[in-house]
């Protein structure tokens, strides 16, 4: 077993890789080693991993159904046998609801993470690479979006589109792309004057090829770091929309909506609102720690490339 492992690591560490795939994997392995040196990043990674496991195995991990009501057992305190984190005002097991709620949270994060950064990256690189009027127009549009507080703009959008999970996701994505456009544009401005872009232009490559093949890969690490750091914000906005009743609708166990439901009992039955609040807090912290660690690993400048 250990000889198999060491064979793999020597293959990854080979200074003269025989294929491009081996070279890439070797780079990823070195990045992983750098990441492992940062204990806080590993804590963040562990939290995110636990979130993924929770979401994937919710039906097997949850002791009770998250939706079925049992009014005879309502508002049981934590550590009651059978209800580790207590029950809410409809007698539903809070632990089970948090476990199922991780699926909703992850779904929202995932959809926002694949839409907003892609759009922002496209806007930012195009604006940065072409400059001039293109830049002016695209960045002024970005500024308009940035002029509103994210949550307010998301609220307005949901109010127009109507409440619901899909609309909440759409609203969050539409309000969170401008920072990525800014980051990508700033990165593009430094990259586009570099000699290797000049070399590619000398080969006769057109703007599309340069932006997609050379500029975007250089912007990607900054954007990925930014996305990871923003995930906490996305979770909070989603929770905020849920809290205000504009996001995921009851009886689905969304964390923000759960806090909202527990608000009425905050002083006597504190656990109803506190438990989902803790879940939001821990997951946000996890993404922030992971983002910080990724910055050290992915940033080409600090990595000494």
């Amino acid at each position, binding site marked *: 077993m250990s000889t198999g492992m060491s064979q793999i690591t020597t293959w990854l560490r080979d200074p003269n890789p025989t294929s491009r795939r081996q070279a890439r994997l070797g780079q990823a392995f070195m990045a992983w080693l750098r990441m492992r040196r940062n204990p806080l990043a590993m804590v963040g990674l562990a939290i995110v991993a636990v979130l993924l496991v929770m979401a994937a195995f919710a039906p097997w991990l949850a002791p009770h159904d998250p939706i079925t009501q049992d009014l005879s057992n309502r508002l049981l305190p934590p550590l009651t046998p059978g209800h580790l984190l207590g029950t809410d005002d409809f007698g539903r097991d809070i632990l089970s609801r948090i476990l199922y709620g991780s699926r909703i949270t992850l779904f929202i994060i995932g959809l926002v993470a694949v839409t907003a950064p892609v759009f922002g990256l496209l806007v930012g690189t195009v604006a940065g690479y072409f400059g001039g009027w293109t830049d002016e127009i695209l960045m002024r549009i970005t500024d308009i979006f940035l002029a509103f507080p994210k949550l307010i703009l998301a609220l307005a959008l949901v109010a127009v589109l109507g409440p619901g999970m899909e609309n909440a996701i759409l609203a969050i994505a539409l309000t969170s792309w401008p920072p990525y456009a800014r980051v990508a544009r700033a990165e593009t401005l430094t990259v586009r004057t570099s000699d*290797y872009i*000049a*070399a590619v*232009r*000398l080969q006769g490559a057109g703007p599309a090829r340069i932006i997609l093949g050379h500029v975007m890969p250089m912007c990607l690490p900054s954007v990925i770091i930014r996305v990871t750091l923003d995930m906490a914000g996305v979770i909070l906005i989603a929770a905020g929309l849920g809290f205000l009743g504009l996001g995921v609708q009851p009886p689905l166990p969304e964390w923000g909506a759960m806090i909202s439901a527990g608000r009425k009992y905050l002083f006597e039955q504190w656990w109803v609102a506190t438990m989902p609040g803790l879940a939001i807090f821990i997951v946000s912290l996890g993404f922030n720690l992971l983002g910080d660690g990724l910055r050290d690993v992915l940033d080409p400048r600090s990595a000494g490339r």
Partner: protein
Amino acid sequence: MRDTMTEPLVRVDDLKMHFPIYTGVFRRHTGDVKAVDGVSFSIQPGETLGLVGESGCGKSTVGRALLRLYEPTAGRVVIEGEDIATLDPEALRRKRPTMQMVFQDPQASLNPRMTLSAIIAEPMVEHTSLTAEERQARVFELMDAVGLNRRFANRYPHEFSGGQRQRIGIARALALNPKFIICDEPIAALDVSIQAQVVNLLEDLQDKLGLTYLFISHDLSMVRHIADRVAVMYLGRIAELSPRDALYAQPLHPYAEALLSAVNEPDPNRARRERIILKGDVPSPANPPKGCSFCTRCPKVFARCRVERPELAEVQPGRFVACHLYTPDAGQTGASGVPEHNQQGASS
């Protein structure tokens, strides 16, 4: 040495590269930085033209404008009969393989996220229809040509030393069999011990592949080693363009004289050239002096220099100088339209 009547591979006519300055709230166009202000020269096939001058004199800008990395403000750049400066994008793209560039900073000119073989193969993806295996074979061929071990093919640029990186840059420039290569200070960022290796490699490749170089550098001894003819630039204009040996033996333009007096003599027993220390700073290219651009610092300046701009003219066979010391003291400069054409036959 060379057939003096052959058509030059590269001919540059009155190339100008002005960068506009915008000031004020309304971004008004208030002036231009005249980085290159009327440069003319020609390069014969197989020749190496050295382009020297101090920092900021516009020599790198000449190189970049020549290959349309900048859009030239005015002038013609004729390479193999086609005017690069006005070519439409598609024709320019097809022309690209003919002319390539080796950059100053080998670190900055290689994409840090691509492996060596991907970097060298990229021009072929753009311009040829070779299969992946054929490309890989050509990459190995090029790596052999520039002296890189084939085992390094899948390494990333940061795993190489400066000299090796510059070899990668040279291999990439050679990938499409160019005829004309602009070397933009290719050795300035390298250790002295590595400089000679790279220059020798460039010379070997020139012999083997019949390349033509424009060698931009501020290292006068290295230019003396590699160039056939040398152009000395000052403030966006050519001060003197002469065959190498003649220039280094006896520079004609006062600026060339001052510049070359700074070169160390390898033999300490030989009489040391009198050092000429220029006073003052280079004037701003946004606001060059009226008359000769060198008149503010020239030790031999006289009244005419301050009012009339000297044109580049042939004062000895093959030697071109832009200085009133060598032009007949007539009221008008008879040579105003002539210089860019009469240097075709200029060669040692």
